[in-house]
């Protein structure tokens, strides 16, 4: 296909040509960034979390008398274990992604500082079973440690802790964390085990690289424990939550009792991100549709304007295929110009967003990705008008208008 005649004809229709290029460029720039944002949010939504997310239900009790906790919590747990289908039950202070953060900086030397805010989890006896933690090294807490550890000034009065694998690597790179001492100010705890990565209570507040910085402490029945974790098979969860709320409601008439599945808690945390993803997808789809219609409209106009020329070309021997490929090549050239401008624009927008909206750098493959998408869109949009052009009979050349 000869390109020069196409360029010559485009030069005669400079304004419409520039408009198409501009439209494709803008669409490309917005598409790149929107798809990138969708990708980032989807990655967030799929954060891994090494607990039994599909099997846990959580019932929260607020407003119980803390002085009675030592007798009430074991009684409540016994009642909860009696619910059909519950395989393990334990009390805890908080859950990953429950947006109720208890944060503390943990370091390897007394009074050292860090920018990571670790999430602190206090779990009661059987906590590891009810939560479905996965032990990678070392051991769980034993019964003495559960019974002998208290809660004071937001810290554990015990002497042992479990850390996540991420934290073990962050705090003691290249060494085993087992037996090492973890500090906050002057207080230290011995690491007895390393568990697979559990998410923070609110990863937004964890500081850079602290998303999986979670530390577990054993705790005897104590008033600060408001969460009852129940484990069952996924099919039983809804019923288990319902029955557990009833059971605890009766046992704790003076407190507020609320239940949810852990999956529900997780989707609450990501509800914002989820609605943003849908909004971005909608904008992308509608914008591509508008761009496509614009190309259809303008190409149709061109075809109509050039009916005579097309007729003449057909009369002097051009086949339908020639005419078809003329318009497709023309569109390809315009798309290329648009996409090139668009990629530069997309890069610029990304840089701006990086400085103003805590966005990270867009990986390079988003640029050619959306370029190909817009090329395809252009070819698809031009097909209809180009076919109409190809259908122009040669006899048009002999008519005056």
């Amino acid at each position, binding site marked *: 296909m000869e390109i020069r005649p196409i360029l010559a004809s485009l030069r005669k229709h400079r*304004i419409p040509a520039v408009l198409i290029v501009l439209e494709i460029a803008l669409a490309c720039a917005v598409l790149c960034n929107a798809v990138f944002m969708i990708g980032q949010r989807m990655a967030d939504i799929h954060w891994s979390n090494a607990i039994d997310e599909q099997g846990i239900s959580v019932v929260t009790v607020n407003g119980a008398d803390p002085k009675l906790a030592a007798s009430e919590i074991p009684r409540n747990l016994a009642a909860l274990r009696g619910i059909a289908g519950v395989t393990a039950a334990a009390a805890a202070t908080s859950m990953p992604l429950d947006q109720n953060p208890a944060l503390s900086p943990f370091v390897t030397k007394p009074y050292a500082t860090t920018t990571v805010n670790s999430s602190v989890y206090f779990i009661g006896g059987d906590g590891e079973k009810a939560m479905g933690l996965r032990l990678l090294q070392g051991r769980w807490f034993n019964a003495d440690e559960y019974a002998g550890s208290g809660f004071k000034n937001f810290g554990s009065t015990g002497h042992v802790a479990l850390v996540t694998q991420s934290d073990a690597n962050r705090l003691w790179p290249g060494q085993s964390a087992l037996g090492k001492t973890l500090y906050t100010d002057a207080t230290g705890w011995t690491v007895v085990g390393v568990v697979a990565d559990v998410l923070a209570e609110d990863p937004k507040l964890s500081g850079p690289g602290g998303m999986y910085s979670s530390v577990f402490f054993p705790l005897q029945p104590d008033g600060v424990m408001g969460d009852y974790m129940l484990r069952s098979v996924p099919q039983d969860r809804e019923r288990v939550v319902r029955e557990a709320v009833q059971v605890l*409601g009766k046992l704790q008439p003076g407190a507020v009792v609320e239940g949810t599945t852990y999956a529900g808690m997780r989707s609450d945390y990501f509800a914002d991100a989820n609605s943003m993803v849908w909004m971005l997808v909608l904008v992308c789809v509608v914008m591509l549709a*508008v761009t496509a*219609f*614009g190309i259809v409209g*303008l190409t149709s106009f061109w075809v109509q304007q050039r009916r005579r020329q097309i007729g003449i070309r057909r009369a002097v021997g051009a086949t339908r295929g020639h005419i078809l490929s003329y318009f497709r090549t023309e569109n390809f050239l315009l798309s290329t110009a648009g996409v090139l401008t668009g990629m530069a624009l997309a890069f610029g927008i990304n840089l701006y967003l990086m400085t103003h*909206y805590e966005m990270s750098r867009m990986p390079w493959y988003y640029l050619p990705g959306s370029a190909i998408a817009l090329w395809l869109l252009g070819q698809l949009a031009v097909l209809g008008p180009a076919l109409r052009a190809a259908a122009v009979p040669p006899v048009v050349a002999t008519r005056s208008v």
Partner: protein
Amino acid sequence: MFGYYLDLALRSLTRSKVLTALMVLAIGLGIGASMTMITVLHVMSGDPLPGRSNQLYYPQLDPLPLKYQQSAYGPDPRLNFTWPDAMALLAAHRAERQAAMAGGALLVRPAQTGLRPFYVDGRYATTDFFAMFGVTFLRGQGWSGADDDGRARVVVLSEKLSRKLFGTNDSVGRTVRFGDADLRVIGVSADWQPQPMFYADASAKVFDDADQFFLPLSTALDLKFDTNSNQSSWSSFEGDMKSPVLTWLQVWVQLKDAGQVAAYRQFLIDYSAQQKALGRFERPPTQARLYGLMSWLDRQNLVPADVRLQLWLALGFLLVCMINIVALLLAKFLRRSGEVSVRRALGARRRDIFLQFGIESAVIGLAGGVLGLVIAQLGLWSVRHRPDDYAHLAQMDVSMLIGTFVLAVLASVLAGLLPAWRACRVAPALQLKTL
């Protein structure tokens, strides 16, 4: 002439229905998306107390030690007050009215059977709170300064809470059990929900929560009620809320005019200087600040980054739509070169042609505005179903309604400028020859 052009525009638009529909759809979508986000931004940056906000001020002191390092993730402790500073500002009485406050969520245990205990948000405050913010009472009244001093066991309920607990808005004299304490109801306020809830600290969901009870700050402290605002301390602190190294209170003052504002600003600096002389403050006294309500809200950055991002996205989309319309209008107007030439040959001036096409663009804009309004309502409906705390605010007011049409017509006329200009520059003789 205007009527004639309007008639011409309508004729031309009905001639090529698909093209017209495309243009109206494009502008409608662009305007709909933009107006949805502009409306969200508009309601989020609105004035919470129209008519009063220009008299309300938030003072700020700097009691932090010199070596204190602000974490990039934690809240700034200076946004709130320590107990001694807040009480000193109140006792000085340098403003028309002044009040210290803090938020709290308390467990309410209803007396009647059949109602489970529940948590409710409210505010611990000092006596001037109601008069300063203009809270109206349906029954009874607020508490006095003497009640503040005497840690009176009294409470003011919102109408909503009063109805929930007692089934009536006349609950004055009755008793409500908050936590482990019995408080006597002395007033019922009309439901009051300034948007955003400017007087709460940064940890509150400022677009969602409304206070349902108010009780004296001293009483709350006496009963050891928990506060749910940020508490920041920069030195060892053993749970004493009256500690001079713990900030957790908000202080608002009402000042009548510029003279009072200047005097109060000076008072804050003098107070800081005095505290520095006493050795309590370490930083220069000129760190003391006084913010007007609206500029205080500006500093809080209440509009989430996501919302601003979505606004840019919507405006980018509108731009794509506008370029689309420019292209389509160009095609449409140039197709009518013959008609233009005839009119020109018969004596129409260029500006007549320009006006004719301008009106045609405006008609498209108006139609697009109607569609845009429908789409924006749909968009706002979907925003209201979002999980965010500002979601329920997403409603259009009259100014946004008018704004929709202004923006739509403006966008379409702007888009029509270039095509109309090109059309009126068609050389009549050349076109007429081919007719």
